[in-house]
């Protein structure tokens, strides 16, 4: 930015931006703080902000009572598994579309994206039925497959946009130097593709971790991930604020951390390249 900014104006902007930022972040901050309070402090009126007796008790209680680690493990398997499967299917497809485009490539890409827009509730019963028939209801493998399919269009799309940024001239140059196809893939293309693949993985882990339609409707006890675990707190248990907060903090912490790294990918992945 070339425009000169007076220190006074910068100070005012700083004040406003921090005020708005903290206001938006407040519910998360409040949840994290409450998770370290006792139940009595959590509902005290007037509320206590920082000066309370910090305790870790809620975290151990949540783990003991409801086996938090099992749900965490399910979330890890579902988000990780569906992303890995999706990448395995999507890399060749995106590769082909980016490097061997045909007149149909654009239509195929748009069609793939359009499947992402199908409202899930419209096919809820068929999926339910298929899951029952195939014995997939409340299994991790069934849900992993569904989450993979739900996010596959976004994975293909993101990889495609990243692969297209790899300049073709580099390949020509490598070929001139006598590189074989294997050299091309291993030494030239792969190193250039890895950052894009990593970004795609990051965003899709986040999306799969937070998916809350299929995970709520197709799981019961065995395969339920953290989304469903938290939903079970909508019963009276949720009125124990400190425990609710501890459970919530544990459910969102890993993704908040990943999310910090993925701001740019978010724009690319979720606008389908419509905003640059």
């Amino acid at each position, binding site marked *: 930015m070339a425009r000169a900014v007076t220190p006074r104006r910068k100070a005012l902007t700083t004040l406003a931006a921090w005020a708005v930022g903290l206001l938006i972040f407040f519910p998360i901050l409040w*949840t994290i703080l409450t998770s370290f309070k006792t139940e009595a402090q959590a509902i005290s009126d007037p509320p206590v902000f920082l000066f309370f007796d910090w305790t870790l008790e809620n975290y151990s209680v949540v783990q003991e009572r409801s086996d938090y680690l099992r749900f965490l493990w399910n979330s890890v398997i579902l988000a990780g598994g569906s992303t890995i499967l999706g990448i395995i299917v999507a890399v060749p497809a995106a590769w082909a579309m980016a490097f061997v485009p045909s007149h149909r490539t654009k239509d195929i890409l748009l069609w793939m994206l359009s499947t992402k827009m199908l409202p899930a509730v419209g096919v809820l019963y068929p999926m339910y039925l298929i899951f029952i028939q195939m014995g997939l209801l409340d299994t991790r493998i069934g849900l992993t497959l569904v989450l993979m399919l739900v996010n596959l269009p976004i994975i293909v799309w993101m990889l495609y946009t990243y692969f297209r940024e790899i300049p073709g001239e580099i390949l020509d140059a490598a070929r001139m130097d006598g590189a074989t196809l294997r050299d091309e893939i291993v030494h030239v293309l792969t190193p250039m593709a890895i950052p894009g693949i990593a970004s795609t993985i990051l965003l899709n882990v986040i999306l799969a971790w937070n998916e809350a339609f299929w995970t709520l409707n197709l799981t019961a006890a065995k395969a339920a991930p953290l989304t469903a675990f938290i939903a079970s707190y909508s019963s009276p248990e949720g009125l124990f604020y400190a425990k609710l907060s501890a459970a919530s903090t544990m459910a969102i912490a890993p993704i908040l951390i990943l999310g910090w790294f993925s701001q740019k990918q978010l724009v690319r992945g979720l606008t389908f*390249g419509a905003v640059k």
Partner: protein
Amino acid sequence: MATQHSRSAARLMMAPAVVLLLAWMLVPLTMTLWFSFKQYLPLRGGDLGWVGFENYVRFVTSSAFWPSVQATLIIVGGVLAITVVFGVLLAMLLDQPFWGQGIVRILVIAPFFVMPTVSALVWKNMFMDPVNGLFAHLWRAFGADPVSWLSEASLFSIVLIVSWQWLPFATLILLTAIQSLDSEQLEAAEMDGAPSLSRFWHIILPHLSRAITVVILIQTIFLLSIFAEIFVTTQGSFGTRTLTYLIFQRVLESQNVGLGSAGGVYAIILANIVAIFLMRIVGKNLDA
């Protein structure tokens, strides 16, 4: 260059993704269409035969239909209005130079990464609870009677929760768009003495129009199918039964699959209308 050989290799590489997505789209969709023309009650007699368009007629003439359309429109419209207006303002604020930009950006984006069940439940219990919620404390501190948000102002509460989740998305995209604005143009306008309101109206807003369109279209598609936020707060009561939630109840709660499937077909058509507009913009960008 692409030879015949590399073309068939390319087709082979695309096959798994294309086949999987084709199956994922066609199989359940065909089943939904099939059920929508049947009287199908899994718990009360099962498949009771073909009924033509009766489910389609009954779905739109049931007393729950129009209220659900209204609830859907209010939620989608309310969230869109809030996220776009505040998104533009916030993006303009964050685009200014100030101390701690990186940290503030993270604070603003954070709600997007909170899973829907957590944000809905935290808002419901810790903020909107009429006895122990933070809002109730605040209201009492000013001598007012606490409000039972999710029953007395149910739609407003849902709009508030969902807006909080989607404001970061709108802000981030609009910020990306603002940052691509040519600052020379703005400077020129500034030097010509254009007041800041007219600069906003004539330069910034037109520049943002496409990003705003994209935000509206993408959010509409996702907002039409919000589920968890209602599932863990009101369960569709107090006038918060959206179209999506109504279909869910018809299919899984009352197990009237034929009727719910007809509703599902309506939802699919609705989403497709929005998707067509979005796809046009995406398609244009692919050519560029």
